[in-house]
């Protein structure tokens, strides 16, 4: 028991302070998002038209609005807390969908080469030459708005970057002798791709994923702003900020607090991603 604790503390000591700090930030945001219904001081959708656009700390009828109110007099703290869950789950799910699709296609193009490679990579070129937001708008316009559709749209329009990275990395790794050795050992394509190539290209893919994670939150915000994402009265950080943008001269807090949360979340994910990539590399795990 005590040796286990000792081992844990020794392992923790090797974790850099910055990583511990951002992990705490990340965990707090995630926990707040999950427990928003219990943590939030008020109903995020209850309007108080007499208390519109009030600054942080505003008090009315015995309720304190710690982060102020928005254009409809709704409690900004509660809306931010509820919005966290929406923003997080859209970002996480769409990153999962797009990376699964993108990495698989990239590995297939890089491993099998030939016609399938041309097909996939030209498709990537086409996808990347269309502005992502336009593509997303078009797709939502056809499918209609909604949470799951939003995830699908983001996931299925954002895969080309993963494909590019996975493809380039696969080309590189596929030429290494250990892949040749696996082929000689009798390993099939599926085993080589998922057993040997995937773990060896995971680092760069993870970097793309953490960068995309922040982008997904912003994309969701943009689409919600256009009325194609999360439908009111439900809130996400993006939709709160989009609305707040119009009032930024009179009520800075509407944009500032969800914006700060967004910044903290994306920043901590990026730092964690870097650290995780190093941890995934067995060469850096042991002295």
């Amino acid at each position, binding site marked *: 028991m005590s040796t286990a604790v000792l081992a844990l503390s020794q392992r923790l000591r090797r974790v850099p302070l910055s990583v511990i700090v951002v992990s705490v930030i990340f965990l707090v945001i995630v926990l707040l998002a999950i427990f928003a219904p219990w943590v939030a001081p008020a109903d995020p959708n209850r309007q108080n038209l007499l208390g519109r656009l009030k600054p942080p700390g505003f008090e009315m009828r015995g309720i304190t609005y710690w982060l102020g109110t928005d254009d409809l007099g709704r409690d900004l703290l509660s809306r931010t807390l509820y919005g966290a869950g929406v923003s997080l789950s859209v970002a996480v799910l769409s990153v999962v969908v797009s990376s699964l699709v993108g990495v698989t296609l990239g590995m297939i193009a890089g491993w099998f080469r030939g016609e399938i490679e041309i097909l996939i990579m030209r498709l990537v070129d086409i996808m990347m030459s269309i502005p992502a937001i336009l593509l997303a708008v078009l797709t939502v316009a056809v499918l209609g708005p909604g949470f799951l559709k939003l995830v699908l749209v983001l996931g299925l329009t954002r895969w080309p970057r993963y494909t590019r990275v996975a493809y380039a990395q696969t080309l590189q790794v596929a030429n290494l002798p250990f892949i040749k050795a696996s082929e000689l050992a009798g390993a099939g394509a599926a085993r080589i791709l998922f057993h040997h190539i995937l773990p060896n290209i995971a680092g760069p893919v993870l970097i793309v994923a953490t960068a995309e994670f922040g982008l997904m939150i912003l994309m969701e915000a943009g689409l919600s702003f256009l009325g194609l994402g999360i439908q009111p009265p439900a809130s996400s950080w993006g939709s709160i900020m989009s609305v707040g943008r119009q009032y930024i001269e009179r009520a800075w807090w509407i944009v500032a607090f969800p914006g700060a949360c967004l910044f903290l979340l994306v920043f901590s994910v990026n730092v964690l991603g870097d650290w995780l990539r190093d941890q995934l*590399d067995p060469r850096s795990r042991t002295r």
Partner: protein
Amino acid sequence: MSEPMKSSKTGHVLEIRDVAVHFGGRGGLLGKSGPVVKAVNGVDLDIARGETVALVGESGCGKSTLSNAIVGLQAPISGSVRISGDEVVGASRRELNDIRRKVQMIFQDPALSLDPRSTVGATIGEPLIVRGVAKGKALKERVATLLQQVGLRPEHADRYPHQFSGGQRQRVVIARALALEPDLLICDEPVSALDVSVRAQILNLLVALQKRTGVSYLFVSHDLGVVRHICDRVVVMYLGRFVEMADRDTFFANPKHPYTKALMSAVPEADPEVQRAKQRFILSGELPSPSNIPSGCAFHTRCPLATEICSRERPELTPRADGARVACHHA
């Protein structure tokens, strides 16, 4: 000890007949056909059970291409490669997979021939897993035995390649190659990436394993010192063809082809007296491009003995009195 010229079909783990491997030639940029690179140009070779044959030549002569053709990683345009009687050329994926039980390969750089994300145990066990030979406890035991055979300890199975030295990594590579108990092991410069101090250890390990298992080696190398140490027979390759083939002792005592002589004179002697007294046989010029092989004898552009016939007629490998076979008009 071996009789290389014996034509008997039995007992040969490798029989190569007139194998040629060419690259490119079609589908170049804008539909133009690029130059054809004739990497291997019609070679014959037999390797008997338990025999070690060295394939010697400078880089770019087609050694590695020939090795790849033997294991079916590179399809020849013509010829036949048989491993313990089974034809590799034109084999289906499934047939090829079966044949590869009997032929495995060791690569030059042990740092690149092991998956950095797989434990050593997983790497050695892979051929056994994918072929359904062993799993679970039996697999673990087999891996432990293999590790011991190559001079490592069973507990090394849980470690990653980066935790080993170069020599130890090459031992792991050898253990993986031996997992399926192949008849033939192609060693592509297995010690040239290693420190001189561990080369001898790896070579001795290969010799010891051969004694125990009866495996044959095709030993691709450009280091004649190493070749002398380990081989029964030597084959010299130049621009995709064999130019000399002889038993080791004959080969080193009496090299015949001018190219072989040049290779030999490039090997430094330990004794400075001998080194100074040695007659140097220096080649002029570079290795010609395999996409533009000289007419007649491919070596005539660099050969000090070359005469007019050499650029007209290609010499065939012909047997000499001492059993060596040489492709030269003048030697």
